[in-house]
């Protein structure tokens, strides 16, 4: 599923150096579990996002492996340390090989 996938990320614009910030991410994706059947009784094949990562200036913050039991429109909330100004990079990996990326700048005051 390559159409209609839209990542959304909420990161504060500024922080003090060494601060802990909360990041919220959501990506619109139907996360077809491979358990459901269509009207004719055929199993709808699995099509999910199987991995999500968040990095800050090349250093890893969180790396999540997703399975079929994650809800539609996968949502994650986690906390990161901001040692300096830079860029958060968010990456989602789809079962069909697509990779969705989003970046957010943060400045240190």
């Amino acid at each position: 599923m390559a159409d209609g996938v839209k990542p959304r990320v909420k990161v504060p614009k500024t922080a003090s150096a060494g601060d802990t910030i909360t990041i919220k991410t959501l990506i619109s994706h139907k996360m077809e579990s491979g358990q459901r059947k269509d009207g004719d009784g055929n199993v709808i094949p699995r099509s999910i996002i199987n991995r999500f990562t968040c990095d800050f200036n090349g250093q890893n913050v969180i790396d999540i492996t997703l399975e079929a039991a994650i809800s539609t429109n996968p949502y994650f909330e986690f906390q990161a340390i901001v040692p300096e100004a830079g860029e958060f990079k968010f990456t989602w990996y789809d079962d069909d090989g697509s990779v969705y990326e989003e970046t957010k700048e943060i400045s240190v005051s």
Partner: protein
Amino acid sequence: MELTRRSVLQLGAGILVVASVPLKAFAAGEDLIESFTGGADIAEGGVTLTAPEIAENGNTVPIEVDAPGASEILVMAMGNPTPNVATFKFGALSASHSASTRIRLAGTQEVVAIAKMQDGSFARASATVKVTIGGCGG
């Protein structure tokens, strides 16, 4: 229908198959724990799993895991067709080693979180969630 020896045996076999299905799912969860921990001992405590007591809709059940000092947390739903839910790996810039997300639950069941600590030990927490409407289609 006449109750013959054959039909009684068939009935018995049918009941056995039905009874063994949830057992199988449970065993799959145990296997998963085994492969994650490598057979090491698991302590209670050290990891917090927050989940609602009653979830009206099994399609989106909010959960939160929190384990200070953990490098990895495995979350499982023991009563799902595939018990594995997600694995959280925390990197160098992760602040509180906690994360929240929304998961699917097929029915009322136990959700288990197992944390792998930085020193190589394991901790476990579980919560029972009552589900009114299951979240696996069908």
